């Protein structure tokens, strides 16, 4: 993964110098370890601030919404699928974009790593599929595969689906991944058990909306939870309001979510937010044979009618 950065910089510099784009959306080093932050590079001189490693989990498609400039964007598999979704939903035009595709081998979960240590982690170094953690009186090397984000472990689309430039050779896709084991487990619960499961899941939610803000799909000018005339949903952390928020948000993402994991990554309380969106993702796959963001040629199932759409729930 680390070798990509030279190529990313080279492509970015060339595109900026040739004037083909106004800016590059990429990542720069964050102020704390394992937290790279998105950045917009507008001049060839600033290209050197770009970085690429396994801490670039944020979905950059989130920053494309309604942009007017010509943009070079660094895109992992999931980012590229969200870029496709953005183009389909008319939030950005294809010809505004130069997509710098980055084949991805997964991003690391800083919570999994922090949970292993009691002291503060000061430095994280990545090399040859290993992660070396350094802190006060602490140095340990971990296998990257063991500390991947959950959605990355289950990822079956690591390579970007659309790109104009490529920062490295395409990687082998993971095969025989059982993506929905956890969802099947929830599906098998009784209504009462499901109610309790979601009560537990959401008990720590503080309604900060970090999940919504990190999500590239959540671009409504006024989100239904922010609306006050009429006020659709209460703004407190009443369990029913919290539940309404999470379920409605998930439904808004039906047929659009690419399981990029941004919501879960952004949650300050470590709530497994993907449990909501993943059920809908599974349904879309099983009922409509649809995976979001794979092609520009086909309209998503929720805005097309097919005579053979499943309808046995209607009496």
């Amino acid at each position: 993964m680390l070798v990509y950065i030279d190529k990313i910089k080279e492509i970015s510099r060339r595109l900026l110098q040739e004037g083909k784009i106004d800016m590059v959306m990429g990542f720069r080093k964050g102020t704390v370890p394992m937290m790279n932050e998105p950045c917009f590079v507008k001049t060839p001189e600033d290209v050197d601030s770009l970085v690429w490693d396994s801490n670039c989990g944020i979905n950059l498609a989130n920053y494309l919404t309604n942009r007017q400039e010509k943009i070079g964007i660094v895109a992992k598999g999931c980012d590229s699928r969200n870029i496709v979704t953005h183009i389909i939903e008319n939030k950005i035009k294809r010809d505004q974009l130069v997509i710098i595709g980055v084949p991805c081998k997964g991003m690391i979960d800083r919570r999994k790593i922090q949970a292993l240590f009691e002291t503060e982690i000061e430095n994280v170094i990545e090399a040859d599929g290993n992660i070396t953690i350094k802190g006060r009186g602490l140095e340990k090397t971990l296998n990257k595969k063991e500390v991947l984000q959950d959605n990355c472990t289950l990822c079956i689309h690591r390579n970007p689906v659309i790109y104009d430039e490529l920062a490295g050779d395409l990687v082998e896709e993971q095969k025989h991944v059982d993506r929905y084991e956890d969802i099947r487990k929830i599906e098998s619960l009784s209504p009462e058990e499901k109610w309790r499961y979601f009560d537990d899941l959401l008990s720590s939610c503080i309604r900060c909306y970090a999940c919504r803000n990190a999500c590239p799909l959540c671009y409504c000018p006024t989100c239904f939870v922010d609306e006050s005339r009429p006020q659709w949903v209460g703004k407190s952390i009443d369990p029913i309001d919290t539940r309404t928020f999470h379920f409605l948000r998930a439904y808004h993402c039906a047929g659009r979510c690419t399981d990029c994991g941004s919501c879960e990554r952004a949650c300050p309380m470590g709530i497994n937010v993907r449990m909501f969106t993943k059920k809908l993702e599974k349904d879309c796959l099983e009922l409509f044979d649809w995976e979001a963001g794979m092609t520009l040629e086909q309209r998503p199932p929720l805005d097309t009618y097919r005579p053979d759409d499943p309808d046995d729930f209607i009496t």
Partner: protein
Amino acid sequence: MGIQPGRLHFSWISSAESTKFVDVVNEVTASVKALGPNKNFLKTEAKVA
């Protein structure tokens, strides 16, 4: 999401199908009555000290 089956109904009724409408409404009310009062998705009033 923990909603009891029997509280949620989907039906397609044309404006010309008044009898079907009546049947479906009767069916829905009967099935909801059989389940009794809903205990989930109820918001308690905020307590004022």
